[in-house]
């Protein structure tokens, strides 16, 4: 035992400032990439992106444009980006690190906000990677098909992609916090909207309201930058159900729950 490191109490920094939120976000970001599970998830998302872009390129008759190739990967993101949120929420409870996390920052909703922000930063990184993959594919496509694909990339597409990834990460975080179990949350966010689509397809009376509560339609539109007025409204209502409700339930459930 060395005396130098066992500082007597009271000599530590006298001014006890709170933990700045940016620092919290930085730590949460690190937590999402410092385990093999976390790194594999990110690698998986990028790999699926690459596969989807390659598939689109292979099937195309002429040199595809950058934006078309970028769009081609959105199906994978729709499926996988919520996983980032789910894992950020559930691993604290399944690995019982919540005991440490909330002892160091008792304002739990603030921690969850930082997790959301960190997840969004990661999703942004994935989008940049996707754009890069699509750019390479554009070059390859040009070479394959004799004639360069279009390099135009409109703001609606980029903005739509960005908003979609925010929503997807929040959706995953919401399901993760509400259920606090990785498998349950994954099954729920994958199955519930699908079950809802099936039910509404079978019951004619539900068909009209179903459009307002189905998220995948407007989300796909958003990610291709082609959302219309009605589509925006439907995005709003369905987001409230599939992102807002689980998030509210999850934040409420974890805010005062006993950590053991």
């Amino acid at each position, binding site marked *: *035992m*060395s*005396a*130098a*490191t*066992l*500082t*007597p*109490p*009271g*000599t*530590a*920094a006298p001014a*006890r*400032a*709170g*933990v700045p939120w940016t*620092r*919290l976000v*930085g*730590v949460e970001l*690190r*937590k999402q990439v*410092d*385990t*093999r*599970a976390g790194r594999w998830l990110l690698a998986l998302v990028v790999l699926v992106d690459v596969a989807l872009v390659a598939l689109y390129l292979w099937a195309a008759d002429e040199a595809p444009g950058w934006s078309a190739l970028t769009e081609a990967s959105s199906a994978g993101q729709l499926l996988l980006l919520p996983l980032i949120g789910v894992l950020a929420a559930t*691993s604290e409870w399944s*690995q*019982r*690190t919540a*005991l*440490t996390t*909330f*002892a*160091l*920052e*008792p*304002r739990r909703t603030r921690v969850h906000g930082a997790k959301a922000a960190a997840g969004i930063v990661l999703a942004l990184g994935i989008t940049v990677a996707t754009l890069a993959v699509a750019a390479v594919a554009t070059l390859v496509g040009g070479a394959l098909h004799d004639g360069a694909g279009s390099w135009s990339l409109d703001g609606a597409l980029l903005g739509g992609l960005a908003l979609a990834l925010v929503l997807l990460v929040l959706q995953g975080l919401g399901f993760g916090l509400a259920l606090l179990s990785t498998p349950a949350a994954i099954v729920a966010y994958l199955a519930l909207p699908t079950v809802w689509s099936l039910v509404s397809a079978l019951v004619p009376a539900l068909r009209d309201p179903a459009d307002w509560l189905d998220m995948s339609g407007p989300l796909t539109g958003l990610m291709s930058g082609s959302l219309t007025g009605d589509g925006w409204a439907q995005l709003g209502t369905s987001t409230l159900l599939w992102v807002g409700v689980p998030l509210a339930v999850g934040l409420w459930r974890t805010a*005062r729950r*006993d*950590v*053991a």
Partner: protein
Amino acid sequence: MIEIAHLTKRYGSTTVLDDVSFTAAPGRVTGFLGPNGAGKSTTMRVLCGLATASSGTATVAGRRLRDVPNPGRTVGVLLDASAQHAGRSGREVLTLSARLMGLAPGRVAACLDLVGLTAAEADARTRTYSLGMRQRLGLAHALLGEPDALVLDEPANGLDPAGIRWMRDLLRAYADGGGTVLLSSHLLREVEAVADDLVLIGRGRVLAHGTTADLLSAPGTEVRSLDDGALAGALIAAGHDVRPLDDGGLSTSASAEAVGRHALDARVVLLDLRPARSAGLEDLFFTLTAGSAREEVAA
């Protein structure tokens, strides 16, 4: 200063903590004892803001930990050494917390060094750690933020003999430097050796609270003489309790002075006169928790 005041905690209809009150003072090590399920960990979880009390308060330096900014700098906590992400290295676990608390970069290495984890061990993932290594990592984590108080739930559990002695010295030095230590343990000898104060709890109620010296000191005197029979008669006649000792001699509730006077009056020659032997923490523990223990233990 850690202050637990009228703490009550219910899970549904079961009352786990029932009006628990005690304090742990700065500069002292407070041992927190009780049978399994007595409520020690629950009290500590409430103190750390991880569980919500049904009523009552648990404060450090007069504030609930939930209201303290950057609480890791105020209280170092080790509640469960196995509650670590299995896929992170020990160094990474400490680094995350050090960043969160805003500590100087060298602090992680210093704490690893302090608890005796080698660089190779620190870089291994915690799923490979032995119980004692987890416990050491947990202690490093509790000390990381140079806190004013330590809350340790069974920290000696799993430590090797050298580790136990090392921890005893560490807690002693920490308390002597002005720190507050609240320490739960089932290793009674260890607690007896290091704790200045004791809190005994059983089935959610405080059974005893005081300094170790007071709680363990037995009132009365032990005496040996050339005629124990005559001396016993004189003491009993004067209204004192007298009990023969197994190895000869008497144990009595009378003070040393009273025994001396009665011996003088009865003209009995004394061979040995001393304060009664302390009962020992194990005896005290079994006596107090007899009603709340799980097993029948012959005290």
